[in-house]
């Protein structure tokens, strides 16, 4: 069944990530997203929510001999020119800020990676409406 899904027909996917970068589900999310692109499917949006917002941080430092998931996500988004959206409320709560929010709340650090956009939960609903499938990674 999985093989069928990844050959024909091409489908539109929305991917939601809820778990932190060090969680196995975050690695699976990236592998799944890469497989979609390799299989010719369309990713209408990546939406990072809850602890998933940390994977859009450019401040995560990974030991040299370990997988740097936030960096791999950033390359994946820019290489494939994807729509990468991070929930603004979840991001603020966890200290993932872009320039505008850092100024608004008078914080020193700007750590939202290039290629990511902070926006609201409406973007998740919009992606659900636009996609054939919503695939979520994380949760309990």
């Amino acid at each position, binding site marked *: 069944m999985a093989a069928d899904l990844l050959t024909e027909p091409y489908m539109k996917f929305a991917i939601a990530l809820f778990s932190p970068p060090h969680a196995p589900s975050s690695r699976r999310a990236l592998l799944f997203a890469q497989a979609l692109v390799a299989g010719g499917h369309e990713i209408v949006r990546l939406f990072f*929510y809850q602890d998933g917002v940390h994977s859009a941080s450019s401040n995560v430092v990974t030991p040299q001999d370990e997988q740097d998931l936030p960096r791999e996500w950033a390359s994946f988004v820019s290489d494939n020119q994807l729509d990468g959206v991070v929930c603004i409320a979840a991001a603020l709560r966890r200290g993932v800020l872009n320039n505008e929010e850092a100024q608004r709340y008078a914080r020193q650090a700007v750590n939202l990676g290039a290629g990511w956009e902070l926006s609201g939960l409406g973007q998740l609903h919009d992606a659900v409406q636009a996609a054939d499938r919503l695939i979520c990674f994380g949760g*309990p």
Partner: protein
Amino acid sequence: MPKSLLIISRQAPWSGPSAREALDIVLAGGAFDLPVGLLFMDDGVFQLLPGQKAKAVQQKDLSANLQALSLFGVEDLFACRDSLADRGILADQVRGEDLNLLATEEIVALVNRYDQVITL
């Protein structure tokens, strides 16, 4: 026709931001007039208990957000009957105006009825 979305909320109200963040997805969907449903399951059913003293654990009360659901047009509210029973919660303690208590096989049918599902 817009796609329907079921949110399954499985976390206790004071175990972190998960319960609130699940509710936020539902409220956002309601604000956009989308067909969203909310199912309380596992520890998520603790969110339904009245008389919670959020201030005692330095938290904001979630019950106002729960009551806002109907204002946002979200009327499809469900709770897992087994999850309540497993935690010694009686149906009378949680029976809200719109809350439907479902047995396991009804939950299977519920999940099948929705186009998309998010579990938090």
